[in-house]
């Protein structure tokens, strides 16, 4: 299922699953990711699944590219059915204090904000990967009419909880960070909690996410 394995530097494998970015390809990536994770192969330091790639980085003191490549090529894959996907609802408030780029999006996409929200809420999205900053989920695919490029000049500070759109994806800023996505709202839910060492991420690759619109009162009264 891996199209090609090459080296990324001297201490990582670069597993390419093909050009396409879709749920099918990503499901293969996640299946490999979980299979390798389960096997606890000696020397592996980190696994980074993304849309259509899996990077396996390792300790060059313990193993090397050739050995690990063989091991990954001959890996017994776990059944796809055993991959446990959660369904999670994320409340989002689109009050004007939170929807920082809604005007810009209306202009870019040439549709009204009502239409934007109508096409975004109550739809099921798939989590392709998490990362960049801790716990940030990359979700997709959003409606074709909502696809816009990044901001030309990224924000220095995107507020925590911001929900952003770029191209076919949505994401959530798990804490304040620089960023260039088009922000349409904010969630009161804590997506990343570093005090929960076992499972700090609320959303993990393979999970299904539905955004639900809430008003400002519901946002302010939200208790976790």
């Amino acid at each position, binding site marked *: 299922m891996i199209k090609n394995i090459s080296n*990324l530097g*001297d201490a*990582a494998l670069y597993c390419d699953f093909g050009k396409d970015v879709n749920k099918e390809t990503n499901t293969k990536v996640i299946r490999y990711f979980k299979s390798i994770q389960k096997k606890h192969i000696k020397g592996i*330091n980190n696994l980074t699944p993304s849309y259509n790639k899996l990077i396996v*980085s390792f300790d060059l003191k313990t193993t090397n590219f050739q050995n690990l490549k063989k091991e990954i090529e001959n890996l017994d894959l776990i059944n796809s059915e055993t991959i446990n996907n959660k369904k999670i609802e994320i409340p989002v408030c689109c009050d004007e204090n939170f929807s920082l780029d809604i005007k810009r999006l209306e202009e870019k996409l040439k549709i009204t904000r009502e239409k934007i929200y109508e096409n975004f809420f109550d739809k099921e999205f798939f989590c392709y990967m*998490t*990362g960049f*900053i*801790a716990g940030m989920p990359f979700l997709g695919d959003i409606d074709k009419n909502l696809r816009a490029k990044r901001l030309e000049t990224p924000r220095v500070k995107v507020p925590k909880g911001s929900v952003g759109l770029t191209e076919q994806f949505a994401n959530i800023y798990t804490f304040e960070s620089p960023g260039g996505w088009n922000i349409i709202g904010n969630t009161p839910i804590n997506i990343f909690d570093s005090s929960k060492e076992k499972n700090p991420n609320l959303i993990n690759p393979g999970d299904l996410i539905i955004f639900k619109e809430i008003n400002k009162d519901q946002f302010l009264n939200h208790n976790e």
Partner: protein
Amino acid sequence: MSKDYFEIIRAGINTTFQDLGRKNLYHIGIPFSGVMDNRNFLIANKLVENKFNSPVIEFAYQGPHLKYFGNKINISITGDVNFVLKKKKEVIDGICYKSFSLENGDELDIRSTNKSVYGYLAISGELDIKYQWSSCSTNTKANIGANDGKKLNLNQKINISKINENLNHKSLKYINTKIQNIRILKGTNFDYFSEKGKDIFLNKEFTVSKLSDRMGMRLEGPKIKNIVDTNIKSEGLIKGVIQVPADGNPIIMLSDHGTIGGYPKIGVVISADYDRLVQLTPGSKVKFKEVNLSSAETLYKLYDLETQNLISQVQ
């Protein structure tokens, strides 16, 4: 409260607790972190007879000025560092790669690193700090690790929970080596760049920019032209990856890097050169030099062996 502690008179520019970092968390977006210069970290701990992965205090450019209260303790400083010890009756010029004793009321003033970025302070004992995912390493971007994930500040204390029983004096004859050629392997998007761009990357001189920190090192020089696409589908990153965004200036990923990135990867710094790469100060001139995978593997083995030899020479 701990009876042995340091008071912070000056925190320094970027002073953090670090160890060897945390593994197996890239998939949730948490980088490795850990000390930037592995070799100097290991030697610092050995000089005060700590376990090899004991937390140390990493500082950049200007270090902290500390005042010690408590029972006698040993410290060591590694890197290329200008520091003094202020005792009751004298001021002693510090020497790197040598342990010193501190007694109640003594001060340690780590003035600056010389022509290098990072230095390490190891303390003979255990620090009273928080661990997250089996590591104390402070990641100031995600606020993870010791000191609530923040750099050290004025008006706080460094508490010591246990002092080592043996306080022998140790030293090592060693001078840090510097590099001008950074050895690399071609990256997965090497062919995204024009022939001229590739030639610039492999043969021309670059200057380390001021915009460099624990996350990444930016370089300036002749622009490397992309002829395919200035973005790739976001994918994983590792330490040492050299990305080239649309502006044509390379950025090298360092220990606190974001785990995912969408810029083409022109190259990756070999593991053997990482410790010396991070010590390049802004303004340094560097060139990239291509090697193949098997040389990179051999060079790392040699580098690691040399580090182990240095550690065994501490006495």
